[in-house]
């Protein structure tokens, strides 16, 4: 069994009327099966309202399933009385960098997680030093988070999660509010964590460019997982992706159009270099 496993996971948002009776239910996650191995880089794609953020909140036990089961490192989320112990294993980075930084100084914010876990003081300092190092924010440790750029804030947030030494980090659209530079910064940090520290990464996004380095991609639509496979397998199905209102990277689209008009190149080209070598063959 992988580090995160979901079996027939379902979740309903309930809408209450004025008397507190359930008026309406909306299925946000429907019959989702997942099995994520430790050390993998997994991307979950979907357009707005596809249920990907709701699914993300399950991976961190912020929401508990209405149906089915979700296991984090072998423990079912609805059977653990102290949920914060699960949250330590699967850290979560949110979309808005301002709303997830608690400390007034960068290093204090990174120390917040370990403080909550009851780590002794000297060890907190060690963890904070290491985590800031890993995301390249050591130079800013005494700064106020308010004066950092979006990408820097998001890296501080990632350091804050890393200081909890999680086995897995879930990033819920971490780059949606950032400019292209900030986006690159954050993705680079995430990829390095995955490769060097062997942390399992689950990246939730609707930017196609961000998933080309993933080991595995899941595509969600209307609460269901509708496609899964390697980035190459996913991106070779340009027309299916369009049906789910997702755009493929420009290079892939160009290659797809060239192929349609008769140029002999393979499907599923992800980078400019690949296209160049395919064309020069």
């Amino acid at each position, binding site marked *: 069994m992988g580090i995160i496993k979901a079996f027939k996971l379902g979740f309903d948002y309930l809408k209450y009327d004025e008397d507190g009776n359930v008026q309406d239910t909306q299925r946000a996650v429907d019959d989702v099966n997942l099995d994520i191995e430790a050390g993998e880089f997994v991307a979950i794609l979907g357009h707005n309202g596809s249920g990907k953020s709701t699914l993300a909140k399950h991976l961190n036990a*912020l929401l508990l399933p209405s149906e089915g089961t979700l296991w984090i490192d072998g423990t079912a989320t609805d059977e653990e009385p*102290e949920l914060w112990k699960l949250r330590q294993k699967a850290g979560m980075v949110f979309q808005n960098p301002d709303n*997830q930084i608690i400390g*007034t100084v960068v290093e204090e914010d990174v*120390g917040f997680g*370990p403080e909550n*876990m009851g*780590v002794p*003081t000297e060890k907190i300092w060690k963890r*904070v030093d290491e985590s800031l190092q890993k995301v390249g924010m050591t130079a800013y440790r005494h700064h106020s988070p308010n004066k950092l750029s979006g990408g820097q804030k998001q890296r501080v947030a990632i350091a804050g999660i890393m200081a909890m030494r999680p086995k897995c980090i879930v990033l819920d659209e971490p780059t949606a509010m950032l400019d292209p530079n900030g986006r690159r910064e954050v993705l680079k940090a995430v990829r390095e964590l995955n490769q060097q520290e062997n942390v399992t990464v689950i990246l939730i996004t609707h930017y196609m460019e961000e998933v080309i380095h993933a080991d595995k991609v899941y595509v969600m639509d209307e609460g269901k997982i509708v496609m899964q496979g390697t980035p190459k397998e996913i991106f070779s199905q340009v027309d299916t992706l369009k049906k789910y209102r997702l755009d493929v990277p420009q290079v892939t689209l160009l290659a797809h159009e060239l192929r349609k008009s008769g140029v002999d190149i393979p499907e599923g080209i992800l980078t400019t270099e690949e296209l160049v070598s395919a064309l020069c063959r």
Partner: protein
Amino acid sequence: MLRDITLGQYYPANSVLHKLDPRTKLAGTMVFIISVFLFHTLPGYAVATLFLAAMIAVSKVPVKFMFKGLKAIVMILMITVVFNMILTPGEVLWKLGFLKVTREGVQLAVRMAIRLTYLVIGSSIMTLTTTPNQLTDGLEKALRPLNKIHVPVHEISMMMSIALRFIPILLEETDKIMKAQIARGADFENGNLIQKAKNMVPLLVPLFISAFRRANDLAMAMEARCYHGGEDRTQMKPLKYAAWDRAAYGILAAYLAVAIAFRVAGI
């Protein structure tokens, strides 16, 4: 820009007072306030002045910052002085119509003026040398015994420090909403007081909505980072008394003893 606003009035410097534990400074301020009320004669006030001057010198904060706080209480100070002078019965010095200035009145007025001024300067020394965060930490630790009577000390101090962190963010947001509403034709400048207050509605409603949304996000982010209240929580920067603090407590005890001795001896 709004984001450069500094909260409180912390003046960064590298002095012994800055390095002291916030609890020591809180205790020191309390002792000083008590002493100001214990002293009631000229030699007594001389001792208090000496102590205050020494503290200002040690703090390395420019003197003008100390007196800034006084601006806020000038009105109160004037009213206190005038009323004390004319309303205290006793030996009449001057008489103007029904107003009588008495010797006792003048004495009392001077005493009150000195007390109020010293109170403000004394507490300014604390706020100028302590960051709001240190102050919150100090209060949390100093008030911890109240936990026994079910005062949620940790929660209160957590709320205070979160408020401190979000004030600049919300100020920035106010600025943004204000500009957005001005671009849509809102008018925040003209009209009388009631109109102005009404004009604030398109500013306040979005601000409140956004503040609630932020609170919700933050609560979730805190939960995701294992926050589960003050139990079993450790601290990254725990407050510890150092040699400075023990020395400071010694000086405070001596000072308080002098103040009590003066009062008992009636000097």
